[in-house]
């Protein structure tokens, strides 16, 4: 006689995309100034999504509310389906100004998130060492931040965010304080990081080229108040060399397209 097996797995699952972060009706007032107005956004797991928009349109505000560092005036953020009430271990932040502790060595800075979780020193240093190597800073473990260049400091900030093994990396203009060459190197690193790490990146930038170059999806924000004006999924070939990609028609057209949209706000 044949046993009756539970057949739950056969029930049809609705083809609902797996959104790791959902933003629902999010608004933010600073006093009477409306910085963001009714933002609704989905961030699919494993994608690199850029928030792009003119200065002051509320990109940082939005990112910090996702991080749980700022309280929204209305609406909510869901991470893995749960409402955000504050920072959490499934999100890690990369700061525009690096936010490294100047009194601590590189390795202590990188291990800081783990230190706060109470992980023993030997263990957290081992993990930190691995990520320091991953961002290309092996050999600099015992240096202090003021002994590093801006680009190296941001790598420390990145390693610190990677070390806590969060699912979502929130990056606020991480490359804006470094020179153009370093910036391009960073963009390559970010792309290869995205290939090896199964993480979701939410990436703030005000460079159209950068957004188009690295993103799976670009959220265009408009200003006063900040709202979502468009969502673009650039269809860029990823198999060429950086130079080939930057000369690709579709890459250039996407940039042109976004520019045309943004011009309306500049005027």
């Amino acid at each position, binding site marked *: 006689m044949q046993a009756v097996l539970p057949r739950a797995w056969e029930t049809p699952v609705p083809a609902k995309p797996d959104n790791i972060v959902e933003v629902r009706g999010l608004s933010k007032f600073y006093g009477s100034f409306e910085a963001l107005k009714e933002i609704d956004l989905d961030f699919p797991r494993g994608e690199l999504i850029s928030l792009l928009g003119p200065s002051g349109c509320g990109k940082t505000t939005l990112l910090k509310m996702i991080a749980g560092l700022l309280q929204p005036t209305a609406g909510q953020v869901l991470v893995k389906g749960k409402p955000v009430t504050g920072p959490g271990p499934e999100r890690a932040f990369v700061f525009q100004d690096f936010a490294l*502790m100047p009194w601590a060595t590189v390795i202590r800075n990188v291990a800081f998130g783990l230190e706060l979780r109470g992980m023993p020193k030997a263990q957290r240093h081992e993990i930190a060492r691995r990520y320091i190597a991953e961002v290309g800073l092996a050999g600099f473990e015992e240096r202090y931040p*003021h002994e590093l260049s801006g680009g190296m400091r941001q790598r420390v900030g990145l390693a610190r965010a990677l070390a806590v093994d969060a699912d979502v990396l929130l990056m606020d203009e991480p490359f804006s304080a470094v020179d153009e060459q370093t910036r391009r190197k960073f963009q390559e690193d970010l792309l290869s990081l995205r290939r090896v790490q199964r993480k979701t990146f939410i990436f703030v930038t005000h460079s159209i080229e950068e957004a188009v170059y690295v993103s799976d999806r670009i959220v265009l924000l408009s200003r006063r108040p900040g709202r979502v004006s468009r969502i673009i999924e650039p269809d860029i070939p990823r198999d060429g060399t950086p130079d080939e990609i930057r000369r690709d028609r579709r890459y250039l057209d996407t940039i042109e397209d976004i520019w045309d949209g943004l011009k309306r706000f500049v005027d």
Partner: protein
Amino acid sequence: MTLFGHRVPMMSSLLVWCLLWELIGRLDLMFLVPPFTAVLAAMVELVQSRQFLAATAITLRSFAVGMALAIVVGVALGVLMGRFRAADRLLGMWVNLFVSAPLSALVPILMILFGLGDTTIIATVFMFAVWIIVLDTQAGVKHISGSLVEMSKSFGAKPRDVYLKILLWAALPEILAGIRLGMIRGVKGVVIGQLLVSVIGYGELFELYSRNFLMERFWALTILVFAFAILVSELVGAIEKRIEYYAGVRQ
């Protein structure tokens, strides 16, 4: 410094003053000023005397205890006032008043409160040192940019972590500057306290020497106390230098 086209070392100006002192002493113009060499001889004698060693022990202990209290209370109050507007409103006025008030005037009150003993000296050191530590700590904590605090919170720091792992460290250059200034004031406090109480430590010795016109000893003790004050401030200054690098690079 140059003299007649020749470079002379810094300390030589001190030598000139010592020579002048010696001369005036030899001339026997005032009984208040014995020759410098006599003072030096008295100093050698003094530092070997049991009296002096006992007074030094008492003085150092009162100073250390008073300073320790001033540092703990001063830093705690300063952090509180730097973080909370309400604490600043409540205490700021008093701290600013006391930091520049002639505190010696209050020592007699301490004497009534704590008696003619160690406790009064400790309280005097504390009262002299604590306010500047509060002010400097507050200034340090206030000017920390939010970014490090925000960073620690984003990585799950509890309030306790924010204070112990971020705020105290970020404000360390100012805190140390406050402690250095506090120590200089504390030395004043210990001397003034002992002079006013005048039955313990150096105060007792000063009283003894001046009443019996032992001017060599009086000056020897004065020089030693001055040297101690300079030593203390140099010591903290050296610690300060070691962390100076990050006052400038702090975000």
